[in-house]
């Protein structure tokens, strides 16, 4: 854009500028610290408002929470800010207003790296694996912040996703869509997180693979890790959800248990196609 002095003027010259893998996040800066804020749910993003960089607000007083041992699902129409809400909880964008609390601590000022350290695991919707690295290296990168021996965790992940054990030496970019998602979830589990956040884990995979992925996600949840998930397939997601949030234009429209939402006449009409 001509108004942006740091823009590229539409230049697409690959001999001087590398377009690949550049970050789009405007993460919370490092150096912030958490402070105790007891009470409330295990994880809550409360009254969040904000957007990317200097852009307009995408979230408007949005609240998302998940309790221990639960699966919470965010659904809503395209462009409702579902992914943005997720990123905000993870500190990938600066909040103008609102707080994020995890396990009795206010972590609003923490950078994403520090949130990983606090036990959050996040699987983005796209570009969620290191394509040029092997499956094993992807998992190792997941455990980047761990200083202890993580071979046990890797074994657990190979048990959860056996196909990855066979492909451990292959570059992750050569795997199929479903296998890539397994790598992505596996990478996030490598930190042994206290909470797993999934942004549309079933986007672009076939229905059979989708069912299998849902099964695996339930399996993870059974081990006691609470899961916060954005899903495009609202009906199927709400069926396994303990709690559901319907977002519209960056704000909470409906919330309740998965069953309640599925039974709600208005939610069904507007978002579940009748």
């Amino acid at each position, binding site marked *: 854009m001509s108004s942006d002095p740091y823009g590229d003027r539409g230049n697409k*010259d*690959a001999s001087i500028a590398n377009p690949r893998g550049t*970050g789009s996040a405007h993460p919370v800066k490092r150096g912030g610290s958490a402070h105790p804020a007891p009470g409330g749910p295990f994880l809550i993003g409360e009254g969040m408002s904000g957007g990317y960089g200097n852009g307009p607000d995408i979230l408007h007083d949005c609240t998302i929470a998940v309790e221990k041992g639960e699966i919470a699902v965010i659904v809503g129409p395209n462009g409702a800010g579902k992914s943005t809400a997720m990123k905000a909880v993870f500190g990938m964008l600066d909040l103008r207003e609102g707080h994020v609390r995890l396990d009795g601590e206010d972590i609003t000022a923490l950078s994403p790296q520090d949130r*990983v350290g606090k036990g959050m695991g996040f699987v983005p919707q796209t570009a969620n*694996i290191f394509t040029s690295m092997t499956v094993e290296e992807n998992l190792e*990168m997941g455990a980047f912040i761990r200083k202890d021996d993580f071979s046990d965790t890797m074994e657990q992940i190979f048990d959860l996703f056996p196909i990855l054990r066979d492909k451990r030496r292959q570059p992750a970019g050569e795997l199929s869509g479903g296998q890539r998602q397994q790598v992505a979830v596996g990478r996030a589990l490598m930190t042994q997180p206290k909470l797993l956040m999934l942004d549309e884990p079933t986007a672009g995979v076939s229905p059979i693979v989708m069912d299998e992925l849902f099964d695996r996600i339930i399996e993870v949840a059974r081990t006691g890790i609470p899961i916060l998930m954005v899903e495009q397939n609202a009906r199927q997601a709400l069926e396994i959800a303990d709690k559901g949030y319907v977002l519209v234009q960056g704000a909470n429209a409906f919330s309740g248990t998965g069953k309640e939402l599925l039974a709600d006449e208005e939610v069904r009409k507007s978002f579940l196609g009748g």
Partner: protein
Amino acid sequence: MDFLNAFVALSNYVLIPGIAYGSQLALGALGVTLVYGILRFSNFAHGDTMAFGAMVTVLVTWWLQSLGVSLGPLPTALLALPIGIIGCILMLLATDRAVYHFYREKKAKPVILVIVSMGVMFIMNGIVRLIIGPDDQRFLDGERFLISARDFKEMTGLAEGLAIKSTQVITLITAIIVVALLFWFLNRTRAGKSMRAYSDNEDLALLSGVNPERVVMLTWVIVATLATVAGVLYGLDKSFKPFTYFQLLLPIFAAAIVGGLGSPLGAITGGFVIAFSEVTITYAWKKVLGYMMPDSLAPDGLVQLLSTDYKFAVSFAILLIVLLFKPTGLFKGQSV
């Protein structure tokens, strides 16, 4: 017909100089490719970074020589090299703090960083000229030849001599050590993997807890090391002149692009492809062909495909051919 003499002549004028030059280009291209892969821009100041690191080494070498320190048959410059590397690292880290860091914070597009690197190029070029002047500087000492042409002739009884300069051997050995260390670092260590991860996918590296500033710092340290080593080896093999380093930018870029920008393996291959094309195409083949052919067919002219002034044209032509047939370079680089 005399194949042995032909082969010796070929080794003497094409193979050995090509290997030495190729190693130097490869080291230079590795630096360019790392900056491209991790900081995501083509660093126009890279030639001058090489000149800066080499300059520090030259100055320290002179100082050591004045103290009477020597490595015997080896050039004193090898002793000064670590200090040159440290000097270059400090320079690049200071540059990053003072210049590049600001644009990363602003999330400036890579093209802007390219323009910024032009400014850095001017400044580094100016600093090097201010300190050591624009002229040719000699800093090579120690044994000049491993095998001189005369010794070789005496040893083998061949008509053609084979001279192996000690700098050529040093170039090759140093390059192999440095490249091996680099690959070990990138593929086996935690920090190296974090660099690869950051290059592959910045946001996801962030999510995994990689500290981007640390990755960038590491990158500059490695780039400074590679640039200084490349600069010193080139200076030892040819001579140290600031402007030549600036001119090396084209073959170095060509090498990095031919190999596939962002791919370290590609940078090395590209370096040798460019070096050998330059040397072969600008070499006068009269002697070699003279040995190969019967006297009646021996060529009259120099049989030089192109005059040496066209060596840049050769790098460029190779570059264009590779891009036309394999737009991502010989090894799959990041430029799609």
